[in-house]
């Protein structure tokens, strides 16, 4: 999994190249994102992601809680309709911060 971080208009954006986030690579994803959770809000761009399982969801919940503990916001963008379905089924849309795209996530400060 390649995790790539860059700044756009002073906002930290992280994108991952994986098409699948499952029990096989969720630990790597979790550790990879964790290092960016320090001073500033983060946007994770999931435009490449086509599949997520419950281990991937667990990683998102964990990272969301870590961000809260650090008083920053973790914003998830470009989630596919199928992944949105899974987030709805599991009730995670209620707690995670989800935006349609990078632009709308940047605007909401």
């Amino acid at each position, binding site marked *: 999994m390649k995790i790539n971080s860059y700044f756009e208009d002073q906002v930290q954006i992280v994108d991952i190249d994986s098409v*699948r986030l*499952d*029990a096989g690579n969720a630990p790597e994803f979790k550790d990879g994102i964790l290092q960016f959770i320090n001073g500033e809000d983060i946007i994770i761009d999931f435009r490449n992601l086509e599949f997520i*399982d*419950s281990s991937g969801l667990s990683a998102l919940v964990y990272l969301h809680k870590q961000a809260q503990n650090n008083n920053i916001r973790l914003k998830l963008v470009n989630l596919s309709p199928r992944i949105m379905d899974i987030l709805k089924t599991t009730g995670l849309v209620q*707690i995670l911060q989800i935006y349609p795209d990078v632009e709308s996530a940047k605007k909401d400060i």
Partner: protein
Amino acid sequence: MPEKPVILEIVIPGDIKLLSLLGDLVEIFIQKTLNNGSNIEDLAFQMNLALTEASSNAILHGCKNNPDRSVKIRLELQNDSLTLEVSDNGSGFNLKDINAPEPYQEKGRGLYIIKQLMDSVEYKISDKESKFVMHKKIAPKAKAS
């Protein structure tokens, strides 16, 4: 749909790095076997997810992620239904009521997701193996108009 059932079986070592293979293969297999009908893509994706959940449980809980053990998956496609089976040689567990997990919970969403995707699930434990069986009805093939 063909007259006789179509069956796919895969045996892999209990190694979580092989997990993605199983789900993706099942998705492709369903797409190619039932290659007409517009909702096949969704069905194939859902079965990928259900199988991935059951298989990661078999690998992580059943085999303790030990590649010297193995996990077997089996997909049987009938005219109007499909059955997914995932077997391991672990000690099994007690399949009780599967309830919706709390959003802030960090574990325990796998079986709940499976239950949402399938029509019924059962768990069979014998001396030889623990087998998780999942059923799904599928819409009969649409006649070409």
